[in-house]
């Protein structure tokens, strides 16, 4: 049960016990899967050209959480990533910076140093990312460690095992505890790993659960499983944040992550945001792309618009 005066206060009765929470989540309207996918697909057919495209590309660059989450990450690689986030295209100073770099907790200090003074934030995954299979104490230690190292944002994973076995309150309380560990300095992104939740109904439930527990952002996936962000599951989450704000007045951000590689894809997501959640979300405070290779494609498209010639991978960094 949330004890602080959190934004989730209106739901205090809902989160009071396991059974009330279950009743609420299972009382959410079912998702029309065919309709959802058709809607996402039809919004993906919008043609965005010329000045609108230029705007969309710059907006998308400013929304990228430039990510490296490999076992083989080195301080050198993180520094290179930080330099790229601060100056995505060194040949064109008008290119916006990315929103953040996203690294493992032990790389936060290095990343912080690398982006110092650029306005780029440092996000850190935590809570035994990506599986989340660890004791709560370990997860919280992971979070505190990242926050102490200076992380501006924490990307936590929910306990999918608990969620799928119906132990919603455990998932809820864990998010509340992590939120508390983030304190006031770090924003909390909650990763659902939609690819493991199996149904759209579950994604809707997870979205509400996360928001009621005080998430600042809800995020599709870790990027470590076969199915990552899709237009359909992102659309569903955008509907959830829209409805949540309508009900509580609290705005929550959305971050699709994994599998978004091309400018075309990114622009499709921006259309989804604009048409579903609305213009208020068209800002990197409220919408992010978790991606690594996407940035290169955005930069190549930006160069194409600027010069009229198609660019190539020789003109962006290899990372």
């Amino acid at each position, binding site marked *: 049960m949330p004890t602080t005066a959190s934004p989730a206060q209106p739901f205090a009765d809902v989160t009071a016990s396991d059974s009330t929470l279950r009743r609420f989540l299972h009382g959410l309207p079912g998702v029309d899967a065919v309709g959802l996918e058709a809607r996402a697909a039809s919004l993906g057919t919008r043609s965005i050209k010329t000045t609108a495209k230029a705007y969309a590309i710059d907006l998308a660059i400013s929304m990228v959480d430039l990510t490296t989450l490999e076992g083989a990450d080195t301080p050198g690689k993180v520094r290179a990533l930080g330099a790229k986030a601060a100056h995505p295209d060194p040949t064109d100073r008008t290119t916006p910076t990315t929103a953040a770099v996203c690294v493992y907790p032990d790389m936060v200090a290095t990343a912080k140093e690398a982006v110092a003074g650029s306005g780029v934030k440092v996000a850190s995954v935590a809570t035994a990312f990506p599986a989340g299979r660890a004791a709560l104490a370990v997860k919280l230690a992971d979070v505190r460690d990242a926050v102490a190292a200076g992380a501006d944002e924490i990307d936590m994973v929910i306990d999918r095992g608990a969620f799928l076995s119906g132990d919603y309150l455990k998932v809820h309380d864990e998010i509340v505890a992590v939120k508390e560990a983030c304190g006031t300095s770090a924003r909390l992104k909650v990763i659902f790993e939609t690819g493991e939740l199996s149904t759209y109904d579950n994604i809707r439930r997870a979205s509400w659960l996360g928001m009621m527990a005080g998430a600042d952002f809800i995020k599709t996936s870790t990027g470590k499983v076969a199915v990552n962000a899709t237009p359909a599951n992102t659309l569903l989450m955008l509907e959830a944040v829209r409805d949540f704000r309508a009900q509580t007045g609290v705005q929550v951000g959305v971050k699709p992550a994994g599998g978004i590689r091309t400018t075309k894809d990114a622009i499709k997501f921006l259309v989804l945001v604009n048409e579903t959640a609305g213009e208020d979300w068209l800002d990197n405070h409220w919408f992010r792309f978790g991606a690594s290779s996407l940035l290169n494609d955005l930069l190549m498209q930006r160069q194409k618009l600027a010069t009229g010639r198609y660019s*190539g991978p020789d003109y962006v960094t290899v990372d």
Partner: protein
Amino acid sequence: MSEKSEKIERLSVFKTYKLYVGGKFPRSESGRVYEVTDSKGNWLANAPQSSRKDARDAVVAARKAFGGWSGATAYNRGQVLYRVAEMLEGRREQFVREVADAEGLSKSKAAAVVDAAIDRWVWYAGWTDKIAQVVGGANPVAGPFFNLSSPEPTGVVAVLAPRESSFLGLVSVVAPVIATGNTAVVIASEEAPLPALSLGEVLATSDVPGGVVNVLSGRTAEIATPLAAHQDVNAIDLAGADEALAKELEIAAADNLKRVLRPQPVDYFGTPGTDRLTAFLETKTVWHPTGSLGASGSSY
């Protein structure tokens, strides 16, 4: 029910000619087609009219295929190209008909053209593992070094297929480009694109990996201009460009220092020589100590 009165005329089954990009057969992204006629002006088929976005997609496909194709052993590339000749032989009748229609040749003349084209594939297939000995080798240098030069493919090559020779000319410009390990984006002859589009079907059913050859049809100038300016295209063969277009494309190609092969009069029936093979090769030279370097005279 006598046979005569019941004889139903078969409905014609027309072939939809499509592009060949990345091992698949897409329509043009623009949805456009244009009418292709034979040499007398009779309608033959509708061919896709590619846009610059098709060109862009083709370059992406060619770039993706480059690593695998250039990394394959020369011996393997030779086998794959020979396989193409085998597949062409099986479709000989179709190509004879298409070439006869496209170029207004008699059946026997067209057959001679197709045979020459198939032989041309075989000829280039044989060159894949021999060209390195011809243009590479050990260079004498003034020091205790081995100095070895070996040819490497240039990369993605845009090829403007000859306009007048729709099949033999096409084969004569495409085969040398891919024989050495380059990948190609081919713009078919604007007036006679059908043999080139059918060649795509042959390549798809031989062992050539998707993306190694990509065939686009349409207005040559419209497709060639973005290709010449494309920063991820390493070379361009202007065989099918007229003088004005060739000049324009060469200027555009200068921006990222593409290799440019200017149009030149060619007798496609003659033995081609290695010029087109070497046009799209770079030379890599390595130095290596011979071993007699140590002060004590030791080899290490």
